[in-house]
């Protein structure tokens, strides 16, 4: 780190404006945080990590709504009148210093009793005394040191849901029983008769029985439920033969105990359930800091400021906004409903919605759509539609979002198990008939043995382990899937649809083109100096684009909000801004431009263009070999020609699509029998992502937000997309190969079963052996394939 970087956040100090002792800061915000921490004995913040801080954002007035008790109550986890507990999601948390300072909040304010951080989830839980500090002050306190919490509608709505730990309990009990039963079975493995067995057999077998009961009743519960549902829907899923195996194992062993006949299979039973649950755990890879279920509620604020008839400001809940209300939207606030701009300079950033990074200016009387973020000062607007009926949010009332989870989607294993179940039933029946004539005493023995050995443990394990392992491999390469089933869905895809803005373009580096008569170096210098003090996002972008230059004094500087800026440098007047402001002739094209005139003469304009992602043509060329490609965009056709040149022939282009149109377009493709993959980014793609067979959201920063989808792809890995899709197909092939392997084991076991030779020790060896070898096989091969 150079001396010039900010002691707090590590950014460039830009001169020595803000200094304390030998430390320099990039802005007043960072300096203030340093002062707050230092005064409160928390200076060690800077020792754990270098430049750990983040710049605090301006929050004045933003959280006034937290004084509204009704709203505050919804956020609190616990409140007994004296003490309250609240949890916040704080996205800016990123290092060990953050943990340290956030856990020492009690030093900053005596009203805070305790605070604890859950780093993987980026959550902080704060306990505070109501009489000493209010909820609003708590939020303002943590915002003031750079950790602004993210509070959205979702927080108020969902309340306090708890994570499901049943699977952990189930596997704990199954594993516990498995270990103990195995130990108790040992004497029987090695001895057929003798003193030891005669004396303790009863006790040992009784104990094994006791251990197995909770395994069957509790741990294997889900398999019974799923098998029951399957049979009810006339679908023989993989759980049917599993349940058959479990029941037969349990019933036969119990009968043998009761009548003291000999062989018990409790060890195989508990082992089977344990391994099956292990597969489930392995398949369940959750990314706790990512969310795949977000809808507009996670973006929208809980409350906004309403201006009453008497001009009084008041916080109201977003759901209570009615048509005709007048709202005050402050700087950096989100517009929650559709409305008409009444007052102020609107500069609206729709990047959450469309992925378009360049903000749009609006004049009073213009229509504003929900989902945009106001960037320059406060505005007033009249509400046209309530939240649920707004242009964007009504998308969520579409049926695509009510899609029941994945019951009914046939996966590979279930398709196969239908035949499998019939086959083993047939084998059991014919073996039974044969032994009925050969030796009646052995009929029960043989039939139950067949059902036990046919229990498709290895079969049921190969898919979870292959898919689960692939999920981890993808996760390491920044392609995060919601669940393992997604791999199977992705493997079936034949049509890939891309959104344009934000998906195949990047908002990180817009490229800027100058059109008009070439500027001299001196003039460029002047422009750069002029826009130096402007905070308009477009000007900031242009500032970064222009070459570095010396500082020249600008006199008579004036910024007219919503129009442009002007000033004088070396006695020449510079004017920058919209066409009307500069007196330039406008072009018809819908482009984002800044016009410039120097010395009263219009010199030209800067055009802001989205730049396409690196490797875009390579991605499309690879994909075009195997998939039908479509660009589905909400924009106009302005860049169609350019795209046609860039992308392979046969790519279809559809422009001017509203969010609901996108959804319908995909539905139509699906009705044609296509399996559609949608790649999108903004909220306007949310409907399309939900409707598609597999939806991937591209995200520049996975810590921030992305719409509900099946997978999140880090934008930096966009060019690896074809490879990911190829891997999903290979995974399916691997699973199929592992099926062959597990059938071989079944055939070997079947030999013992049919001939009536199945003893507990053979079952106890064969079952784990087949399971483990299949698991090792799929894990090894998936790792190998993905390394290529």
């Amino acid at each position, binding site marked *: 780190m150079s001396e010039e970087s900010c002691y707090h956040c590590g950014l460039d100090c830009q001169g020595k404006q803000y200094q304390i002792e030998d430390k320099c800061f990039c802005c007043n915000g960072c300096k203030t945080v340093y002062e707050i921490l230092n005064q409160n*004995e*928390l200076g*060690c913040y800077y020792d754990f990590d270098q430049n750990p801080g983040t710049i605090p954002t301006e929050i004045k007035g933003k959280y006034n709504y937290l004084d509204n008790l009704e709203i505050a109550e919804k956020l609190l986890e616990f409140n007994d009148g004296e003490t309250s507990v609240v949890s916040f999601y704080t996205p800016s948390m990123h290092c060990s210093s953050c943990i*340290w300072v956030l*856990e*020492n909040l009690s030093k900053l304010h005596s009203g805070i009793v305790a605070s604890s951080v*859950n780093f993987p989830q980026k959550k902080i839980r704060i306990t505070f005394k109501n009489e000493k500090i209010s909820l609003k002050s708590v939020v303002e306190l943590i915002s003031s040191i750079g950790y602004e919490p993210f509070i959205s509608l979702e927080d108020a709505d969902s309340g306090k849901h708890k994570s499901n730990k049943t699977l952990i309990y189930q596997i*704990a009990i199954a594993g516990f029983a498995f270990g103990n039963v195995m130990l108790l079975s040992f004497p029987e493995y090695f001895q057929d008769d003798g003193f030891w067995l005669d004396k303790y057999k009863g006790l040992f077998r009784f104990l094994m029985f006791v251990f197995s009961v909770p395994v069957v009743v509790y741990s294997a519960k889900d398999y019974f439920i799923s098998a029951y549902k399957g049979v009810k829907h006339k679908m023989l899923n993989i759980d049917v033969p599993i349940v058959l195996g479990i029941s037969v194992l349990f019933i036969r062993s119990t009968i043998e105990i009761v009548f003291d006949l000999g062989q018990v299979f409790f060890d195989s039973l508990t082992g089977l359930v344990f391994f099956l649950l292990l597969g489930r755990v392995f398949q369940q890879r959750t990314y706790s800091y990512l969310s795949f279920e977000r809808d507009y509620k996670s973006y929208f604020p809980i409350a906004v400021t309403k201006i009453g008839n008497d001009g009084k400001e008041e916080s109201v809940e977003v759901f209570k906004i009615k048509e005709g209300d007048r709202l005050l939207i402050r700087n950096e606030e989100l517009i929650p409903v559709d409305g008409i701009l009444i007052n102020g300079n609107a500069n609206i950033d729709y990047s959450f919605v469309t992925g378009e990074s360049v903000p749009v200016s609006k004049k009073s009387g213009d229509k504003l759509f929900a989902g945009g973020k106001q960037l320059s000062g406060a505005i007033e607007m009249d509400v046209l539609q309530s939240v649920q009926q707004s242009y964007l949010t009504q998308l969520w009332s579409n049926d695509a979002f009510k899609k029941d989870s994945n019951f009914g989607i046939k996966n590979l294993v279930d398709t196969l198990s239908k035949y499998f179940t019939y086959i083993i039933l047939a084998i059991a029946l014919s073996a039974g008939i044969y032994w009925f004539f050969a030796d009646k005493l052995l009929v029960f023995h043989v039939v139950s043995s067949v059902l036990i050995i046919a229990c498709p443990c290895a079969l049921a394990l190969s898919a979870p382990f292959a898919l689960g392992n692939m999920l981890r491999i993808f996760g390491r390469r920044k392609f995060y899937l919601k669940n393992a089933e997604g791999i199977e869905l992705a493997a079936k895809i034949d049509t890939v649809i891309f959104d344009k803005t934000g998906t195949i373009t990047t908002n990180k580096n817009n490229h800027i083109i100058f059109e008009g008569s070439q500027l001299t170096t001196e003039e460029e210098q002047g422009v750069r100096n002029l826009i130096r003090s402007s905070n308009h996002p477009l000007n900031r972008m242009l500032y970064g684009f222009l070459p570095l230059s010396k500082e020249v004094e600008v006199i008579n500087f004036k910024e007219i909000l919503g129009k442009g800026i002007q000033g004088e440098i070396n006695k020449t007047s510079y004017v920058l801004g919209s066409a009307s402001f500069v007196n330039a002739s406008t072009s018809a094209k819908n482009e984002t431009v800044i016009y410039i005139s120097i010395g009263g003469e219009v010199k030209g304009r800067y055009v802001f263009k989205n730049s396409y992602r690196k490797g875009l043509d390579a991605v499309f060329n690879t994909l075009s070999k195997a998939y039908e490609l479509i660009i589905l965009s909400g924009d106009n056709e302005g860049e169609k020609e350019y795209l046609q040149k860039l992308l392979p022939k046969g790519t279809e282009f559809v422009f001017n699509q509203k969010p609901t149109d996108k959804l319908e377009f995909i539905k139509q493709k699906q009705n044609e029998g296509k399996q559609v993959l949608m790649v999108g980014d903004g909220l306007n793609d949310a409907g399309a992502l939900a409707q598609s067979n597999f939806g991937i959201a591209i995200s520049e920063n996975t810590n921030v937000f992305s719409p509900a989808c099946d997978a999140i792809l880090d934008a930096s890995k966009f060019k690896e997309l074809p490879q990911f899709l190829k891997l999903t197909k290979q995974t399916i092939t691997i699973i199929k190969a592992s099926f062959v392997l597990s059938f071989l084991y079944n055939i070997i076991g079947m030999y013992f079963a049919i001939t009536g030779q199945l003893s507990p020790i053979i079952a106890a060896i064969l079952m784990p052996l087949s399971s483990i070898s299949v698991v090792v096989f799929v894990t090894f091969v998936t790792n190998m394939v993905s390394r290529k």
Partner: protein
Amino acid sequence: MIVIYLMIAVSIVIAVLFLIIFIKSVKAGQYDDMYTPSVRMLFDDELLEDKTLRKPKSVILNKNSKK
């Protein structure tokens, strides 16, 4: 050999006890966050009583700082 009954009884009671303790700890949320406690345990009394005592300490945890 009657002692075997006692031994088995004791061993099972102990095993069941551990199972119960495990389930309780899961329920209490001990395994919810596997990362933060590992960092938290490295903090000790870093609170500074007096500014003048402050000396630049070596960076304790800097794995995140230079990525």
